[in-house]
């Protein structure tokens, strides 16, 4: 179908991608070669068709002209030959299709698994910049384009090439001068088609760019529709839209027109080749240089000559597309992974929960240090509050503790053991985490709650956690209780309930240390109270790090880390910090002073 999809996307490095593709195909290579051979055989067999049909015609006309009537034995013989050719060719061609389908189904399966696996191996920093949509389109669209089209394209290349060569040979056998007419007409039309196709590509590209612009404008205008209304901006918005929509119309018209043009053009050329062959063939038949059956066969061959040529013209575009998609997949698969890990295991039940920061330095971008020379010792069971204005970098501490990122220099120890000498999985097992973005996966509530603890945890443990967080009533009110299915966006439960569920999840996992984010701005008072209670129950006896928003939490903590512009500017207890009369005091007073 003509459309923006026809834009050729070119791979950046064709040769490299191609080699890589071949490597990935690995064991399938032999099978692919087999299918190529099968396709070639099946095409060649059918190519004899017109010639044999011509022989039938010639046999009939010449025997009638000789007054012998039709020699049916000869005709039937040819018919049987033809039928066996056709049937054998059909069977071979289907076997070939089956092999190819199997390869492409398996290969795309493999690529999808590889991409998912890659996601789990990439460092967190990759996802700071990557767009979710981009990764997702590699998973589905690109794998589909690269692998799905690959099978089809290999098939078409073989068919086209064999047909082209085969027909040329057949025509040459029948009549050299007639063949020359056909063979000259083709390159001329190909040149025309190619030039038009190039022009069309330019317009397709333009159309795609404009469509992209228009689509993001639409997205923006719909999302901000209320703001547009509230600011009486509708007329201007509509005028801007119309202008872009008109430009799209122009581009779309041109790309459609030039996109369909190659078809009439090739038709014109084949028509003229057909006419010349009819006339010349007639002349040769009259002078006896060619049999009537061969004229018939020749006309059939010319009619078939057209198709592989238009197809080959389009194939180069498809190949580019496949390679571009494959390149995107491979680029993703080749991204640098997280460093290998040391495998010394600290068991969760053997840990006391002492955490120490030793001269930690960290930056997301090399030129912008985020944490400078930070040292602190947190004794087992201590409650640490991390405070600071929005955007001060409070989550950075969490990122370092969980080893989502590693410090540039300095290190963190747990019970005296540097975390970088432990596996990431091991470090993470020691912490329970309740974050502001309450991620739940699609599945039942029960499975969500068991998420950190593993499938084998008894349901009683889960029930205990549910009671402790006070969501037992909420869960009972759901249609299927614990087995109610929720999904990623989970519209059927409120933000507060989601947060309570994530708290319960951490409780079920029963980790020795905790990381909590208190931000709960969109929750009603009663739920807020429940969350607070659940938090304090959860933190009891555990070393915990809290991104704090509530004064009560802050004042009860054993250590407060005050952050500003990505740095830890002050640390200490509430009273100490207040008496320093620094940034913390300012922050604190701004909230409660009368003015």
């Amino acid at each position, binding site marked *: 179908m003509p459309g923006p999809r026809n834009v050729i996307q070119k791979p950046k490095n064709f040769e490299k991608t191609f080699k890589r593709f071949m490597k990935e195909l690995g064991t399938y290579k032999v099978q692919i070669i087999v299918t190529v051979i099968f396709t070639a055989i099946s095409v060649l067999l059918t190519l004899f068709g017109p010639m044999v049909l011509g022989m039938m015609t010639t046999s009939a006309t010449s025997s009638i002209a000789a007054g012998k009537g039709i020699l049916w034995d000869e005709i039937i013989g040819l018919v049987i030959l033809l039928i066996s050719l056709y049937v054998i060719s059909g069977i071979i061609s289907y076997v070939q299709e089956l092999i190819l389908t199997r390869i492409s189904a398996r290969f795309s399966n493999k690529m999808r698994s590889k991409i998912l696996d890659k996601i789990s191996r990439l460092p967190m920093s990759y996802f700071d910049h990557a767009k979710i949509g981009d990764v997702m389109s590699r998973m589905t669209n690109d794998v589909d384009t690269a692998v799905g089209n690959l099978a089809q394209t290999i098939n078409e290349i073989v068919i086209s090439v064999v047909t082209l060569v085969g027909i040329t040979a057949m025509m040459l056998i029948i009549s050299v001068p007639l063949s020359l007419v056909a063979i000259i007409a083709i390159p001329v039309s190909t040149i025309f088609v190619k030039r038009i196709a190039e022009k069309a590509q330019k317009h397709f590209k333009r159309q795609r760019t404009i469509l992209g612009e228009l689509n993001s404008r639409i997205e923006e205008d719909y999302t901000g529709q209320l703001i547009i209304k509230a600011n009486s901006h509708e007329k201007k918005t509509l005028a801007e839209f119309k202008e872009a929509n008109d430009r799209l119309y122009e581009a779309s018209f041109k790309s459609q027109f030039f996109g369909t043009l190659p078809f009439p053009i090739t038709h014109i050329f084949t028509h003229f080749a057909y006419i010349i062959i009819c006339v010349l063939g007639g002349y040769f038949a009259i002078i006896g240089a060619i049999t009537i059956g061969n004229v018939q066969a020749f006309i059939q061959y010319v009619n078939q000559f057209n198709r592989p040529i238009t197809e080959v013209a389009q194939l180069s575009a498809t190949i580019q597309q496949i390679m571009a998609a494959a390149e995107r997949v491979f680029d993703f698969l080749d991204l640098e992974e997280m460093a290998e890990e040391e495998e010394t295991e600290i068991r969760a039940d053997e840990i006391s929960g002492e955490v120490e920061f030793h001269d930690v330095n960290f930056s997301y971008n090399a030129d912008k240090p985020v944490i400078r020379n930070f040292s602190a010792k947190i004794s087992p069971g201590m409650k640490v509050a991390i405070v600071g204005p929005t955007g001060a970098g409070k989550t950075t501490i969490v990122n370092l503790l969980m080893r989502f990122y590693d410090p540039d220099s300095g290190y963190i120890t747990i019970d005296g053991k540097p975390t970088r000498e432990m596996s990431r999985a091991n470090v993470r097992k020691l912490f329970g985490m309740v974050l502001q973005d309450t991620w739940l996966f699609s599945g039942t509530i029960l499975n969500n709650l068991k998420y950190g603890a593993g499938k084998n945890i008894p349901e009683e443990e889960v029930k205990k956690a549910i009671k402790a967080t006070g969501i037992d009533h909420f869960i009972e009110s759901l249609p299927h209780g614990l087995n109610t299915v929720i999904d990623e966006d989970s519209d059927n439960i409120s933000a507060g309930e989601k947060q309570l569920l994530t708290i319960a999840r951490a409780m079920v996992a029963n980790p020795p240390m905790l990381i909590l984010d208190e931000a709960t701005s969109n929750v009603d008072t009663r739920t807020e109270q429940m969350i607070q209670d659940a938090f304090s129950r959860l933190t009891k006896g555990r070393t915990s790090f809290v991104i704090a928003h509530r004064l009560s939490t802050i004042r009860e903590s054993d250590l407060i880390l005050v952050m500003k512009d990505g740095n830890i500017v002050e640390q200490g207890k509430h009273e100490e910090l207040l008496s320093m009369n620094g940034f913390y005091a300012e922050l604190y007073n*701004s909230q409660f002073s009368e003015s």
Partner: protein
Amino acid sequence: MFKMLRYLRPYWKGALILVVSIGIQAWGTLRLPTLMSQIVNDGIAANNGTGDMSFIILTGLKMVAWAGISALGALSSAYFSAKIGSAIGRDIREDLFKKILSFSISEIDDFSTASLITRTTNDISTVQNTLIMMLSMMLRVPMMAVGAIVEAVILAPDMTWILALSVGILVGLIIVILAAVMPKFMLYQKLIDRINLLTRENLTGLRVIRAFNNEKYEAEKFDKTNKKVMKTDFFIGAVMGLESPLMMLIFNGTSLLCIYIGISHLEFDASYLGKMMAFMQYAIQVILSFFFLAIIFVMIPRASVSAKRINEVLKVNPKIKWKEKSIKKPEEEPSVEFKNVDFKYAGADEEVLEKISFKAKAGETTAFIGSTGSGKSTLINLIPRFYDVTSGEVLVSGVNVKDYVMDDLMKKIGYVPQRGFLFSGTVKSNILFGADLTNEKEMEEVARIAQAEEFISRLDEKYESKIVEGGTNVSGGQRQRLSIARAIAKKPEIYIFDDAFSALDMKTDKKLREALKPVTKNAVVLIVAQRVSTVRLADQIVVLDEGKVVGKGKHGELLKSCKVYQEICQSQFSEEEYEREVRDARA
């Protein structure tokens, strides 16, 4: 899908030319085999096999003429189908956009913004592409088929049964294959959606998955679906793979039959030599046409889904209708008054707001507080008429909002939504979005009040700095400050802050409210808030609980008298702070 053809009306002239061009093209093409058969019968075989070269050349020239006419038809049809198809796409897109722009919140909610976006983008593209294809293929294919059948029947009526037989087999085959594959196609689509969902989950939940060490579990879950995709993929391929070998068999079988039957006639009628050759070409043309038809019929249902989704939106009649002319002149001094307002969402049983009455005067700040679901945001959305009341009246400067011309009402209001939303453009274009062009000085003043000046001055190009789509290149707090600046720049008489301060830290929140004081001296200020610290200094606090007003007054008064307000304060203050607050209130 066919409903979309109504958009053809303005282009009927072009459409007519298109039909004629396609007709000419088909006709020209179809003349060729018949003329060829004349060359064979009356040229080559003429004069007892000695031939008639001048007849052959003459017929050849006729063929050139027909081919030329056909070529003109082809070019003209390519031109008009592209032109009309693109124009219709543009018109539908514009209609849809206009319609959606006129929607109020309730209509947008009925569809969801995301769905409206896909309808305007993907669905229209699908419909447009299908329309263009329909315009060329749908017209040409049946014409070719009918034309070829007519020519073939005229040429050799006693061979017609060959056509019927092969077309019958072909159609039967296509139906069987599609019937076998269609359900699997749908399943495949569903599975791919699931793959998408799982990938998305893995990306959005990355931290949680890693924190709980559940990479393996996720991989296993993914693997299950991935295997199913593979199996379905293979099944579809295996069935669809039958199509091309069988098609070839039908093609070749038909050719064979034509020649075989033709030969058997040759003994009695020499003209069958040319006839059978031409008939064979027509037969192939007919089979090809039916094959294309099948492809079209597969595509139409897909486009129909899109067309239906577009029509659903176009059909909607926005419930809120604005007056064309203003009826009553509003009072000079701005005010907002609710008189016994009830509100419930369309189709809902329960009222979201019940018997709400209050008056907010110029120069005063009125704050709304209450738990989620208490109806605060809904209440405030009634003022710019994002929704209409179910009963009661909302008066702005003494005039019912229903009696305003839309622009007049909106000019009075500076609205800051819960989540700061920015348009792509520059810092400047966003601040001045609703304002008549203010001068630079004024704009900077506005930014200063909104506490945005500091971060803007740190940007590389200050006020000309680019804001990308969705404003994602500035932080949430900065976004909120810019959207506050946008409201201030309008110099409205009524300010509405719908929980607009919660994205700010307490310090900025406080500074901002202080800076706002002088500009809002003569204006009505309405604030929806979660934090007591944001509302405590308001001239009037309206406490909402389950859609009802349960308290109205100043902070101190409410602390003494309103139970819900006390609960809210208790949850946000520590015990001693709360005690202090209550003591102060009593004193």
